[in-house]
């Protein structure tokens, strides 16, 4: 089949080969400036997200009764909570690192903006998680948050007092959104490579 084929699978494959060759997607060597702990923050964030998802799947399978009443359930509840703490801590450290090295340079603006969106969606996911705990803390947060939602005009379709809605958003739509955006973020990082350090002479390296 020729390269000018109308086959969309061929054109898609050629576009992927062109923009994201395998040596970019799974590199075995990195430029010398990547030899710094600052570049590890993003990877640790992904590792924490993996723990969040795995512990969350287990919690979703067994349900609220289990994570409150059984020892193993409480362990997984804690595992979920603390991996979320690590996820946010390292995401913010990654953000600081990228901010100070101006990670949006040389055509990486979309990568930076998707990172910003990941941050925002993650906050919403964590918020619905606090509302899904099925304890007095969740009730306290919901009762107080409803006024903020109503004053913002979104209380009618984002009802923090509706456990089913918050739980559905927390375990289904929002985590899928975060995961898809993170995959997109990583693919975009791998497409262009890690941004070069800012030239100490004052100029911007390409």
């Amino acid at each position, binding site marked *: 089949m020729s390269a000018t084929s109308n086959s969309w699978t061929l054109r898609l494959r050629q576009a992927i080969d062109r923009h994201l060759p395998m040596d970019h997607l799974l590199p075995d*060597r990195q430029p010398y400036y990547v*030899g710094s702990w600052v570049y590890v923050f993003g990877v640790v964030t992904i590792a924490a997200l993996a723990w969040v998802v795995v512990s969350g799947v287990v919690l979703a399978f067994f349900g609220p009764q289990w994570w409150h009443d059984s020892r193993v359930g409480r362990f997984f509840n804690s595992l979920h909570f603390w991996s979320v703490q690590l996820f946010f801590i390292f995401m913010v450290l990654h953000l600081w690192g990228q901010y100070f090295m101006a990670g949006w340079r040389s055509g990486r603006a979309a990568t930076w903006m998707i990172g910003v969106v990941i941050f925002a969606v993650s906050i919403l996911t964590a918020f619905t998680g606090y509302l899904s705990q099925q304890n007095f803390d969740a009730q306290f947060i919901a009762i107080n948050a409803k006024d903020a939602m109503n004053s913002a005009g979104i209380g009618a379709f984002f009802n923090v007092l509706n456990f089913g809605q918050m739980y559905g958003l927390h375990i289904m739509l929002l985590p899928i959104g975060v995961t898809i955006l993170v995959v997109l973020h990583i693919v975009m990082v791998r497409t262009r490579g890690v941004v070069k350090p800012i030239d100490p002479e004052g100029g911007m390296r390409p």
Partner: protein
Amino acid sequence: MDTPATYFHWGFILISVPNLLVIAGMVVLFAIALVAPFPHGKEADDVRNK
């Protein structure tokens, strides 16, 4: 565990001590990441012009 957190209040800044400690820890970790030597960091020099 169920007692309210102590708060640090300085002018318009009001933050719980646990949150303040987490932020301080993050700043310290960030500073360490900038200066701590990275294992095998020098071995990557040969791909400087990649």
